[in-house]
Every structure is written in C-alpha cells, then in structure tokens.
C-alpha cells in the first residue's frame, strides 16, 4: 500500500505489543502512535486522525469497549479493531463489540496474517 502516510493508533497496556506493531508496520510506511490506557487513547485522538485504531480490551482507567463507545461518539466512521484476550468467550464477544461499532475482533495471541488482513480494511481513498 502506498500513498499518503497512514497513521495507526495502538491502545494497549502491554508495551510489548507497541514494540511488535512498530516492528511490523513502520517498515511498511505506517506511523504508529501509542496509548497505554483508554484515557491516553482519547488524548491521542484529539492530536491526530488515524486510519485505524487497534484497541485492547482489558486496560486500566478505561477499558477498550468504553473507549470504543466514546470514539464512535466523536467519530462514527472511525475504523477500530478490537484486540481481545483469548479468554473472552469468542462468539458472543465478537458480536458485542461489532455491535458497539468495531470493524473486527482479533483474539490474542493472534498471528501476523490476522494483523495484515485487518490493515487491508483501510480504505485506499485519498484526499
């Protein structure tokens, strides 16, 4: 994917995931911003526009779903992918978060191809 630089926001309390995403995505030309909890996520939202947000579920101060609701409140069309811990019951959870406005749901530990697949959701339209 080429074109205008794509901006990605990772919201997760686990630093390792931030390192992972940077390692995978920066070589591909993505800018990766980080937030380590829901509140920080909100801060980041105000600073930039993001093409996709990867949102962890279990975080202190504000959980993923809570933040999702807020994001959708501000930016209804924002593309958000939820990253759930595999311990959450799959089917039901997926349905719930999609109902909240998430585009997709990944279950940790996910594989590389799952990340790539979700990146393809980013519309290529440019203005």
């Amino acid at each position: 994917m080429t074109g205008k630089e794509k901006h990605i926001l990772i919201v997760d309390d686990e630093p390792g995931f931030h390192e992972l995403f940077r390692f995978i995505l920066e070589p591909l030309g993505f800018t990766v911003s980080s937030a380590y909890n829901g509140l920080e996520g909100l801060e980041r939202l105000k600073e930039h526009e993001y093409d996709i947000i990867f949102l962890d579920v279990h975080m202190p101060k504000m959980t993923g779903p809570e933040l999702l609701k807020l994001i959708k409140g501000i930016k209804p069309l924002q593309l958000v992918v939820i990253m759930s811990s595999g311990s959450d019951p799959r089917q039901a959870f997926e349905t719930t978060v999609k109902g909240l406005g998430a585009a997709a749901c990944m279950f940790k530990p996910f594989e590389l191809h799952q990340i790539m697949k979700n990146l393809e959701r980013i519309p290529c339209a440019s203005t």
Partner: protein
Amino acid sequence: MKLLTKLLLFFVPLTLFLVGAAVIISGKGIHSILVDEVNNRGLAQISGNTKAFSMAFESGTEAALLPLLQSLKEQLHGVQAAALDQTGRVLAHTNVMEKGKTYSDALTTGMLRSESPVFRETAIQGEVVLEISAPVWSEEKEDFLITAGDKSQKQRFGTIMLGMPLTRTIQLESRLFVRQSVFLILAAGGLSLGLIFFMMWMILLPARRLAAGISKVSEGQYGLTVPVGSNDELGQLTAAFNLMAGNLGKTTVSRDKLAEEIIERKRIEEALRETEEKYRLQFEGALDAIVVADAETGLMVNVNNATAKLVGREKSELIGQHQRILYPPQGIGRGESADTFEYHLTEKKDQALEAQVITKTGELKEVSITVSQLEIRGGKFLQGIFRDVTMQRKLEASLMQSDKLSAIGQLAAGVAHEINNPLGIILGFAQSVIKRLKEGDSLALPLKTIEREAIRCKDLVQNLLVFSRTPKGAQLEELDTNAVIEGALSLISAQTKTHNVELVKELYAAFLRICANKTQLQQVIINLANNALDAMPKGGTLTISTVVSAKQPGHVEIRVRDTGTGIAKDLQKKIFEPFFTTKEVGKGTGLGLSLVYEIVQKHGGTIELVSEEGKGAVFTVLLPLKPAAGKC
C-alpha cells in the same frame, strides 16, 4: 328356710297347743267350779232340812215328802225335786207324773248306792240340768244308852234327787269362758312373742352377724371379726370363725387382691408386649440395617429387613452366620480388613466406622456403621447399625471434584488471560522476523521453532480455557440420546478404522429422551472414545451402547467399552482429576476426562468406571430421562 320361720313354725303350734290346752282346762275348771257352786247350793239347802227330810223319809209318804220337795224346788229355783227309796222307786216328785216310777238306770242305781252326794249333768225336757242326789240318813237318836263304839250306826232311808237348772250357769259359764280364753290367748300370745324375740335376740342375731361376717369373708374381706356376744355354742362358733377369718387374712390372698394382681400382671404383660412390639417395629421398620451379633462368637443372631436388602441376601442366609460375610474378603474393595465390631468398640467407641459391605452379587457398597453393646438376659451382644452411604459418598466425591474443578477453572482463566499477552508478542515477533528473512537464512530454523512452540502454547491455553469455560450457561434441549451418539460416532468411526478398532453399536431400540447440550454431550462421547482408542494401540473393539438403566430408574446409561489395557485400581479414583494423564508428555493434556466429568455433572448425571488392568474398561454415563411433559 329362715330360722325365724322355723322358730315361728315351732312356736306358733306350740303356743296354740298350749293355749288350746289352757283354754280347755280353764274352761273345764270354770265349768266344774260353777257346777260345784250349784251343787253346793243345792246340798246346802238339803242339809239345812236334813231333820225334816229324815223324818219325812221315815214316814215314807208322799204327803210328807212332797211339800218339802216343793219348798226345796222353789227355794232353789230348781227344775224338779224327787225322793227315791232304796230301790229307786219314786216316793214323791214335784212332777207328780213321775210318782211311782222306778228309775233303774245305771247312773241312778249308782247314785242310790253312793253314800255321799253325787251329781250328774243330764237333760230334762231339753234343758241342761244338774241332778244332785243326796242320801238321807236316819237321824241320830240321842241315846243315853249308846253302847261304846257304835255311835255311827245309821240307816239309809232314801235319796233326794234334785234337778238344778244349769242354763243360766251355762250362760255365765260361757261369758266367763270367753273372758278367760281371750285373756289366756293374749297372755299366751304376748308371752310367745316375747319369747320369740328373746330367742331371736339370743340366737338369731348372733347367728345373723356370723352369717354376715362369713359372707363378707367369702367375698374376700379377710381379717374381719364378728363381735362375740355370748359364751354359748354360737359364741364359740363366732370366736372360732374370727380365728379362721384372721388366719385366712394372713395366709390367703383375697379374691379382690388376686383380681388386682391379675390385672396388674396383665397390664405389665401388655406393656411388655407393647414394648416388644414397638422394638420389633423399629427394628424391622428401620431404613438402616441393624445387625445383632453374639459378642463372643461373632455369629449374627438377628438382622432386620434392611440388612437383607443391603446385602441382597435372605435373612435366613445371614442369621447364624459370622458377621464377616457382610464384608468384602481381603483384596476386594478398598483392601482394608473389615473391622470387627469388637475391635471397633474397644478402639473407636462412639465413632462411626466407615467400611464397605459386599452384596451377594459382589457389588460393593459404602456404609457408615455405629456399634453398641447390648446385654440381653445375661448374654453379651453387639449391635451394629449400618447406614448405606454409597450415594452420599459419591455425591461428596463429585462435589469435591466440582469444587476442585471450579477452582482450577478460575485459576486457569486467570493464568490464560495473563499468558495471552506475552504469547501474542512472542508469536507476533517470531512471525514478523521470519517474514523478513531471506531464503536459506540460518536464523529461519530457530525462529520457526519459536513460532511453532508459541502456537503450541496457544493451543494449550485454548484447551485450558475450554475447560475453565464451565458449561454453566449451556443451553439444554430435548434430544434423543441415540441421535446425539450417532452424531458423535460419525466422527469416531473414521478414527476407529485407522486405529484398527472395531466399532460396535448397541443402541436402545426406542427414543430415549433427555435434556442435554448436544455439543457438550458429543464432546463427552468423543473424549471417551478417544481415550478408548488410545488404550487400544494394537486394535480391539470399541462398544458403544445405550440402555434404560436398571439400577437407577428413570435414567439412561451410555456405555463406552474398550478391550484395551485397562486402568489400575489405584489410578481409577484419580482419573477424573484435572491434569491427570497417563499419556506421554505432549500427548495428553489430562483435561479431557475432567471436562467430561464436569459436563456430565452439569447435566445432572453421573459417570462411573469399571476396569481391571489388562481387561479393558467401561465408562458408564448415567443421565436422567426427561419426563414427557414440560420443558428442559
């Protein structure tokens, strides 16, 4: 007949007799007195005129006699008067018709001969008359010339016959007689009565008292005494009676007392019988088995119905046998030696003894025994009460299991949750580095290994989470057991072929309706089948059967039998525990059977294992049948 009556019967005739006699005698007395008085009157008149009569008789003429006779008659108010000579010829008679007649009847002749006046009663012209005859003697002449010793020489001239009327006399006599009689009768009556009363008082009263006393004693009032009134025979009798009654009181139990004793004894017997009946009802009616054995010999002397039921034998098979036949022999069951009652009593009094009993068919049951000592009529016995706690123990075990599993589940969930993040990072990095490697890079191998193992961890965690995700909210629906099994078998049959195992289906002919979660139930079957296949590495037979349970009514039995290596006794208990596996490292998670256990539990059923090392294994899942009406 009463004594009084007898007394009366005696006294009345006697009195009557005596009174009669008295009356008659007094009557006669009155008569003679009265007659005598008339006679005397007559004689007095005659003797007053002796001289005149003597002189008249001497003359012997009627003219001389008649006036005298008439005067006599008038003065005496007589009926007649006559003068007779010695022959009985009437010299003169106031009734002139009679003159010249001769009375020659015997009586008259007698009277003529008599030298003293005589009288007789006769009837003259219908009237009762007293005829008095008075001899007339010659006069004593005063004679100066009387020779000595011859003074009383007299000559009888004749007899005067005087008839005195007795009518009035008789009337008087009657009146007097009546008066006398009445007096006599009254007197006699009064005397009689008096005597009777006296006799009664003297004899009857004491006799009656005695009789009353006797009758009271005969009714049981021993020790009674009757007052002794007199010293006579009655008194002696009474005294003797008192003595007897007194003795009787000491030596004999009165009838009343006896009756009391009998009632008391009957009451005691009745109470005893009631107690025995109560005991018997309790003994036989008890739900727990009660065994009474001789303390020394150990032989069972009595067992109740519940005992027979517990061990599946007849009472007759048990009574007389040593109580050890109730317990499994050495080597069977838990392998503990069955404590005898006695050991238990000496070592563990007041505690319940946990043991196993064995039925006639070899089935083992868990029991809790409480033992006590009994003493019956001098003999020492031990009584054991056996409570079948088989179900209880199973329940306890499954509850413990459940708790364990639940705890583990929570732990697992927690761990899994924590592990997912690091795992995700490891896997992510491994894969992304691999992507950047050039063909033939030597780092490819280690990185690929990292990736593989990370994925393996992921699967492990998944399994763990499947397990921890306890089927609480599992949806139950109405299912046919056989349909569910068929569904699972389609997955299994493919595997059996590759494992060289024959799959045998013995499914019940009819619909076996249950409430279950299809997926989970199939999980159970598959899991059991997989284990079975693992137990038969060299092939064998896998039999899956469904039946209506005989030992637990209202349940269906799903049996999974294999002809594999079997499971050792000491492992059988642990087999449902989480993480327990007999498989090599990497082959088994040890979660399968514990999950199976959990699912079966949540379905309201039970799972059992019967196996012997080298002889295969049978897993039996019991699930409750759904009643026709109602929802799951």
